[in-house]
């Protein structure tokens, strides 16, 4: 394959396009946090952090960190004008209760029914850890997955059935990878956009479930960032 995949920054920017102005958004730890850096041009987005912040802003300047003002990834943040604090149980009311408009999560695997596996692998060496993933996956109005199309050793992450333990069943609405934007619906995976120069067959080879294609498949063009 000679095509140029999207960079992480481009992937995040593509997700950001799909987040409407005025949304309440929870970003998972890892790559999804990049979305926060690119989403704000012209839109007013309120970011939620599971540890009790609604409306947090960008990282503070070096030396200005407040370790009692951190996000779910334990990184220092700031409070946006209009932001506020609340306790954990109230925070998870927001998450589980359908009040978060959009969540962007990383994933190990996504099935064509929208099943999400993002909390445990089959590596028994590590103690299991789940955090807020399950609450968020069942509760957000729209679950977007931002992940690489395959594992580092080339195995597909888009599957007919997840082999890893599920986080939640039938919750993912859309997947963003370095190669494509793919909807998950009653018809299984439907490709909406593909990176320039990639063939449908090449994308299917990297995907372990049958792909449908939209009538008009858009083209993703790397920005060079």
């Amino acid at each position: 394959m000679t095509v140029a995949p999207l960079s992480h920054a481009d992937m995040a920017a593509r997700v950001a396009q799909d987040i409407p102005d005025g949304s309440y958004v929870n970003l998972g730890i890892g790559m999804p946090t990049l979305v926060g850096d690119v989403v704000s041009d012209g839109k007013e987005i309120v970011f939620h952090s599971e540890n009790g912040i609604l409306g947090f802003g960008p990282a503070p300047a070096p030396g200005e960190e407040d370790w009692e003002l951190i996000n779910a990834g334990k990184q220092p943040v700031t409070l946006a004008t209009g932001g506020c604090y609340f306790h954990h149980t109230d925070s998870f009311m927001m998450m589980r209760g359908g009040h978060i408009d959009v969540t962007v999560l990383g994933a190990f695997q996504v099935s064509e029914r929208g099943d999400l596996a993002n909390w445990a692998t089959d590596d028994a060496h590590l103690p299991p850890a789940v955090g807020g993933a399950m609450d968020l996956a069942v509760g957000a109005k729209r679950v977007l997955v931002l992940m690489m199309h395959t594992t580092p050793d080339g195995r597909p992450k888009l599957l007919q059935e997840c082999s890893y333990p599920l986080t939640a069943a039938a919750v993912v609405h859309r997947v963003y990878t370095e190669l494509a934007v793919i909807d998950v619906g009653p018809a299984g995976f439907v490709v909406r956009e593909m990176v320039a120069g990639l063939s449908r067959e090449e994308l299917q080879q990297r995907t372990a479930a049958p792909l449908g294609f939209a009538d008009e498949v858009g083209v993703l063009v790397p920005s060079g960032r």
Partner: protein
Amino acid sequence: MIDKRVASLADAVEGVADGAIVLVGGFGAAGVPVELVHALLEQGARDLTIVTNNAGAGETDVAALIREGRVRKIICSYPRSAGSIWFEEFYRAGNIELELVPQGTLSERMRAAGAGLGGFFTPAGADSLLSRGKEIRVIAGRRHVFEEPLQGDVALVKAERADRWGNLVYNKAARNFGPTMATAATLSVVQVREFVELGDLDPEAVVTPGIFVDRVVEVAG
């Protein structure tokens, strides 16, 4: 740009459908969103289910909705306040349905809806007639009754101050059911005494974060 402020009471209650489940804040006279309820009366929605602690008194707010025949059913804990004449008249004539719920259960059922829970077991009322027909389970040696979430289509709430994001603070015991009802309705509508600028509310002291609020209208006094 987020701006949940609306210009008029009519805008605030626009779109409430016939048959809606409407959560109405207040305990006694404190925290009752009187002007919003009157706007709903004007707006004309019928066949309503009203969820509120009392059943209205005198000729205003929920009592007026009942008097005008707009209320099919009321879900409340204490419909027998002084002056609840319209409720009592409709109730005796069989023209209004009553679902009586212990007060803590009423509040907790709305919270369960707002929190995305499927229901809970409570000891309150488990030994009483109010648990008839419901699942009873002995937990830790004690009878509990299963209670379902209570979700509203609309919440009408009174608060003290709001910013354009819908962050709210309340006044004293007028807080009562407001913060819970705001979480439990598809459309949460709030009347406040005063709009303030974004950033004017202390982030440590916001009682209802704006995520739970859809529309805010200023009603002086």
